[in-house]
């Protein structure tokens, strides 16, 4: 965490926000029980400090921030901002706080300067102060060169910084940020945090922000952990980490074993809270102390190296969150042998190009994917990975170069060629009004499954994805994690050879993300080829190989170890993929193993 931990700032300022016994329920439908979004939550945020609201989806983070902004009326309890009640004095509060909603609240048709002017006028910033204030904010957010660009044409990171600038237009005494870093690339995330710290340290304002990125929690002075509308715990991040000291282990796999195999082995076992792949090793959080006992959970032949590791906030989070039923139950574990060493090339692109008008969205990409591989397309929003992906699936025509998927160009190939692949679109495209069973039946039939074969596969989906109890629920009303499961079940129902997954983990909480990757591992072990896009850098650890993209071009391609290696420096002996990305994006290291080099960089 380049900026260091700020939790040792001991001086506690005056409270800017006091939440007392706050409850908030929503009536969704007539007759249906009201949805309890917040249940008796009390907390405080202080001047000169960053208070983080951390929790999975549906934890109540957004509801709390909106209530603090005076957008929602509490069902029970009180919220006081700067000594004013949010229910009665909303307007007065709104004069003194800055608020950035999840979608940034920018007018897409207005330029950067026009958006800022709008908020300056609405907040009553006097004309005389504006030039100076604007200059300062633009400098701070690095947007000086883009004042005339339309907000709609900005990249995700720039939009977010502009949103922040608009929220800061009148030097607020308190800043409310709702998931400010969602969908933003790592470089922009780091810049945003830098700005937030400057504000807190120099101007002494209080910041309340919500985040689903657990690594960001460590950057807060004070963390409030929400789950299902209830406060689970709060305190400085160190307090959380101290609770699980001695329960975190790093397992380094021996040469012939993949970290994925170890993870598959450990995940879901009794006594193991969490198992993830980090920088080529498996990070394990245990229910009790005693990390060496892990060795017993693995075959003797593996002989992995086990060492205790310093806990991170994420480990504590996993340990604190109540785990769901049916979590981590993988029915189909490695039946077929590991398929990754088969040499058959399943997906091949050469010199792939895409132009939208005079905008080059994809610049000369060449890469190959082999059977049974998990191949990741990584990059921030707008890097061109979705465009590449859609060309692979035959949804977009390429402007130049060639594509072959299982020997066909899907754009031109007939329906039969498509029958062998599975596709899971962004945002888990399901028919929201149709029930789970109807969705599955439709996709089954669409791929030619019928009668007993269809019934068999439906039963498989119910069991594998734990969908049985949701059978008759409309897909649109499923919780996020189950939507993702259903989408995956639909894509896998016909047992495809290749599956394409577009941002399968965006908008899904950390628990569901872990589960998802375990499943994907399972399918890859069975010889299914997986092509996946993601903007979560740490997820690339699960891939066999990856292609990192930025602005349509390839930055690097290789195995996770190779990519990490790029960013290794004396000061940073153990870099993460994210570090590597930042280094690549900032041009600190030279791109390597680039996909433009005809994809020769294969696994070692």
């Amino acid at each position, binding site marked *: 965490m380049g900026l260091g931990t700020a939790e040792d700032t001991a001086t506690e300022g005056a409270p800017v926000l006091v939440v007392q016994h706050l409850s908030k329920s929503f009536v969704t439908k007539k007759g249906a029980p009201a949805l309890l979004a917040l249940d008796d939550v009390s907390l405080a945020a202080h001047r000169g400090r960053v208070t983080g609201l951390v929790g999975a989806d549906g934890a109540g983070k957004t509801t709390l921030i909106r209530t603090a902004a005076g957008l929602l009326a509490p069902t029970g309890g009180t919220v006081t901002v700067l000594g004013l009640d949010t229910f009665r004095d909303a307007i007065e509060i709104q004069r003194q706080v800055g608020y950035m909603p999840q979608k940034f609240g920018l007018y897409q048709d207005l330029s950067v300067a026009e958006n800022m002017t709008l908020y300056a006028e609405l907040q009553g910033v006097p004309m005389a102060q504006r030039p100076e204030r604007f200059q300062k904010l633009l400098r701070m957010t690095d947007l000086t060169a883009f004042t005339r660009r339309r907000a709609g044409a900005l990249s995700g990171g720039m939009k977010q910084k502009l949103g922040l600038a608009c929220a800061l237009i009148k030097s607020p005494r308190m800043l409310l940020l709702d998931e400010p870093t969602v969908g933003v690339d790592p470089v922009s995330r780091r810049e945003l945090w830098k700005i937030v710290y400057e504000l807190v340290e120099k101007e002494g304002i209080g910041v309340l922000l919500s985040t689903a990125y657990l690594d960001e929690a460590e950057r807060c002075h004070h963390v409030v952990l929400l789950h299902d509308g209830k406060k689970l715990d709060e305190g400085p991040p160190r307090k959380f980490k101290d609770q699980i000291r001695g329960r975190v282990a790093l397992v380094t796999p021996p040469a012939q074993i993949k970290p994925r195999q170890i993870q598959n082995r450990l995940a879901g076992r009794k006594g193991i809270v969490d198992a993830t792949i980090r920088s080529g090793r498996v990070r394990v959080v245990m229910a009790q102390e005693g990390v060496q006992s892990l060795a017993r959970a693995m075959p003797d032949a593996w002989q992995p190296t086990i060492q205790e590791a310093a806990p991170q906030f994420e480990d504590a989070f996993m340990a604190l969150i109540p785990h769901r039923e049916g979590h981590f139950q993988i029915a189909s574990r490695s039946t077929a042998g590991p398929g990754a060493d088969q040499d058959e090339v399943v997906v091949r692109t050469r010199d792939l190009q895409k132009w939208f008008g005079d905008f080059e969205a994809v610049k000369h990409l060449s890469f190959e994917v082999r059977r049974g591989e998990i191949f990741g397309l990584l990059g921030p929003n707008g890097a061109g990975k979705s465009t590449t992906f859609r060309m692979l699936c035959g949804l977009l025509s390429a402007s130049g170069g060639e594509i072959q998927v299982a020997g066909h160009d899907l754009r031109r190939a007939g329906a039969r060629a498509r029958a062998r692949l599975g596709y899971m679109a962004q945002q888990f495209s399901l*028919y929201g009004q149709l029930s789970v069973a109807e969705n599955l039946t439709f996709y089954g039939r*669409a791929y030619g499954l019928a009668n007993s074969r269809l019934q068999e596969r439906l039963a498989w989906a119910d069991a594998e994805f734990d969908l049985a109890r949701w059978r008759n629920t409309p897909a649109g009303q499923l919780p996020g994690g189950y939507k993702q499961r259903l989408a995956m079940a639909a894509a896998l129902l016909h047992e495809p050879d290749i599956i394409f997954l577009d941002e399968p983990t965006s908008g899904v909480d950390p628990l569901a993300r872990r589960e998802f990757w375990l499943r994907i591992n399972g399918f890859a072990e069975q010889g299914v080829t997986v092509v996946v896009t993601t903007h979560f850098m740490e997820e690339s650890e699960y891939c066999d190989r990856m292609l990192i993209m930025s602005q349509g071009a390839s930055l690097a391609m290789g195995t996770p170890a190779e990519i990490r290696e790029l960013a290794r420096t004396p000061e940073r002996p153990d870099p993460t993929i994210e570090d590597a990305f930042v280094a690549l994006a900032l041009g600190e290291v030279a791109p390597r193993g680039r996909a433009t080099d005809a994809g020769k960089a294969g696994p070692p």
Partner: protein
Amino acid sequence: MVGTLRRILALIRKEFASIFKDPRSRLVLVGPPLIQFFIFGYAATFDVKNVRYAVLDEDRSSESRALLARLQGSENFELVQTLSSDRDIDTVVNLQRARLVVHIGPDFSRALHNGIPTTIQVILDGRNSNVALIALGYLGNIVEQFNRDLAARGQTGGGILLEERAWYNANLQSRWFIVSGLGGVISMVIVMIVTGLSIAREREFGTFDQLLVAPFRPGEILIGKSVPGMLFGLLDALLFSVGAVLWFEVPFRGTLTALILSLTCFIITIVGVGLLVSSLSMTMQQALLGSFVFMMPAIILSGFTTPIENMPQWLQIGTHINPVRYIIRALREIFLEGAGVPMVWPQLWPLLLMACVTLPAAAWMFRHRSQ
């Protein structure tokens, strides 16, 4: 072949389920058609009734009263005011209290007794010229009848009788004219909305990509997407045709075969247009506005409410590419003129020709317009 059929069936089944389960689609399917049926049926009429009129009778004789009594007895007219001086005419017409004023001069009865032709003056409010002309026609008929009765009583000689007959619609009810075409227009609205939204909805929710990646051929998607719209459209068109006959008492003189065949041809064409609009739009919003932009001129320029023959020549030629024009004509021929299939055929082949353009164009668009 079996695979194709199975996939199409799966698609159709899914289409029906998603139409019935989407509250927004249900709203669109039920509300507007019903409202339109009654609005068109009741409000869209050129029949002129209850014409408010005022009378200025300067003669006050039994003859003038006899003439005015006929006016009062007609269901087309409604007396609102009896004026005492011609200065009042201005006010009464300007303020729209009366749409026409009948002015009988002081020597009306004397002229009649002496066998001298005489004139009554009628002042009409021309703000709605159509109402004015038709009211004038009604008045002319009443006066003519009055003349004939005078002649019968031997008070005057013969005259010229304009003997009028209207074929197909003897009482000249414009409701017949409007309502007979209603099935076509309303079914178009429904078909446009069902098919227009179908692809746009999938685009908006991201499921369309899923369909394109699945082993569907464009033709299969086309058929799967067309069938629900066609069934809904045909069902509604027939339902509204029955409603026209039973509720609005429009005669049905043609053959059922001709009706079903014409509606089917028309609906196939409209499905093509709807799918084209849908595959061009990226959101349901755009699809809805797109359908609106197509339907509005298509209805107005179809002869549904006002005759095509009244348009300038260049526009009349232009209406040949308007599918609604053909179905309106065919429906009127079937309902009112008793047409069978051979008689409506000239209206049907242009429809089929249009379908041959729009449907393949829509199928091509499926794949070529995706971002």
